[in-house]
């Protein structure tokens, strides 16, 4: 039981329409020195969010009160680069529970699923629609429905379905994680290991 259950999330969203947002931007390496999973949200997008003197950069979206919510909408190829799960932790710790993008980097996507942040991949057209609607009205609400695997722009009713494998979906709905599963199949693993020399 590693994280909160995820069913239906209805929230305003924070737009970040930049492509290839890499994990060094999401959390720079110099903030990876902790030995516990604490406080990473403070440094989410650190170098885009703050100047060298730690004053906020006014033009960055997280410093703009117009935008808020539990959903982050990113540009194409979101989360490329390093395997640091700290990037997903920072996204979670800041308060996001879902990231929407038209394309995700593999490791980041897997890390999100493993900690209870739902990565929702939509078509490029639909991502653009979301960006447009948020630009028109920052209070636009998005509904992410995991049981039905749909994402809806509530203001317009436009809807698209997204993919997630049945196993991961079940994990997210119930707040289970992979270790719960693996510990349960330990016997099979030990049997397998006997035939797998070091």
């Amino acid at each position: 039981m590693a994280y909160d259950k995820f069913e239906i999330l209805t929230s305003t969203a924070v737009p970040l329409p930049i492509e290839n947002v890499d994990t060094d931007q999401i959390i720079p390496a110099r903030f990876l020195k902790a030995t516990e999973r604490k406080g990473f949200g403070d440094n989410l997008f650190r170098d885009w969010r703050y100047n060298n003197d730690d004053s906020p950069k006014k033009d960055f979206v997280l410093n703009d009160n117009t935008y808020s919510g539990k959903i982050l909408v990113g540009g194409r190829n979101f989360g490329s680069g390093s395997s640091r799960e700290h990037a997903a932790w920072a996204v979670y710790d800041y308060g996001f529970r879902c990231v929407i993008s038209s394309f995700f980097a593999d490791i980041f996507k897997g890390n999100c699923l493993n900690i209870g942040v739902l990565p929702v991949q939509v078509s490029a057209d639909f991502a653009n629609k979301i960006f447009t609607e948020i630009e028109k009205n920052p209070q636009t609400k998005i509904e992410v429905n995991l049981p039905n695997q749909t994402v809806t722009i509530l203001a317009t009713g436009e809807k698209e379905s997204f993919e997630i494998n049945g196993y991961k979906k079940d994990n997210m709905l119930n707040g289970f994680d992979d270790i719960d599963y693996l510990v349960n199949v330990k016997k099979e693993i030990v049997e397998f290991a006997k035939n797998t020399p070091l």
Partner: protein
Amino acid sequence: MLHLEAVFFKVLSEEMKKTLFDKVWDSHVVKHVEDGPDVLFIDRHLVHEVTSPVAFLGIKNRGISVLYPERTFATADHNTPTINQHLPVQDPLSANQLKALEENSKKYGISHWGLGHQKNGIVHVVGPEYGITQPGATIVCGDSHTSTHGAFGAIAFGIGTSEVEMVLASQCIMQPKPKKMRINVNGKLNFGVSPKDVALYIISRLTTSGATGYFVEYSGDVFRDMSMEGRMTVCNLSIEMGARGGMIAPDEKTFEYVKGREFTPKGAAWDKAMTYWKTLFTDKDAEFDKEIYFDASDIEPMITYGTNPGMGIGISKSIPKAEQVEGGVSTYKKSLGYMAFNEGEDMIGKPIDFVFIGSCTNGRIEDFRAFTSIIKGRKKAANVTAWLVPGSHQVEAAIKAEGLLDIIHEAGFELREPGCSACLAMNDDKVPAGKLAVSTSNRNFEGRQGPGSRTLLASPLVAAAAAVTGKVTDPRELMKEFA
């Protein structure tokens, strides 16, 4: 009856048509989860100080232990200083992380090669050096450049901390099987073109996300002719085009490299292993989801100009115009704005401030041989700060034994102590804001080498040419005597 036989032979022949990747993956599947991932058995697990502490904390909180501690190896590299390693680490947070790795390793009976240990070094450099890396193995580490080990015909890839915890707890992770891509590069490489250039060329053609969702096999003359060090450089950079990993079928060169190392099988076990390893190749007519071909003669020494590794060009070329590149114009312009470059500009002649030789990409002995081949008899440019960081103590020892250290000193450079160093700038080796670095590492993301730093990725030859001229220089100009 005849019909049945035909069916039988068809099944048999289809079963035989497997890719190298299929052979290694399929033999490690403990079980398949319906409408979900495979439970994949991991032969060898490498851990370092940055992505492991929360995983160790996780198993502690669950009240479970490490299932097979003999399959996990720990080394400190990301967060370590590259000078005065015999002194206590100054930064309390770094020191704390190093201490956590040491204590966790001790608690669970894991081999630990900490700072000051003779075997300490970058995880992807020491793994192969000590024979932890072997053909046909599954290898993971909480680091995306774990793909390096694919050079030996292993399935090796980076994982997140939750997965580190899974491997500690169960020696398995849960992964859907990726799609398969084969990248073929045939022909002969031009003069002055090194493995790093081959990789940067491929990434520039595929883009930074062009292989996302795939596991890559590299095939063709160029990789067959490449040294093991070169193959490691190429496989290392697989993640930079989004691929989870890359691999090359093992051959005599691989077996020769692996033989006799500390953790490789000996005697009868070696013979048995060799019998298996010799089956590790892609069968004729095996199918890939995607197959790509490049011609070796099209590749020249490469350099990047933007803020992802896909933004690379031949060093003699000029920076592309926004309309010539795929993807969004605004992202492209933001990237060039960060670099303070303009569309259409030449790269050659740009003044540089820093040079970094090292990392899991280019911190091996062959890289220092290439670097010293150019600086020999020349002097470091006065405007350049250079950090030369070997990937391990073994590399450091080879630099000394081969007389390269003398060349380094005569040219006005210093050799530092092993570690990841300025590749990700977690330690004090940070390129200051606004400064331009030519780096043999793997990422040119904004601020990767220090807040506000600007990075040009290149081969050790290109980095050496920049180090002695103080500007971006075509290394072939300085290699004419060898041509």
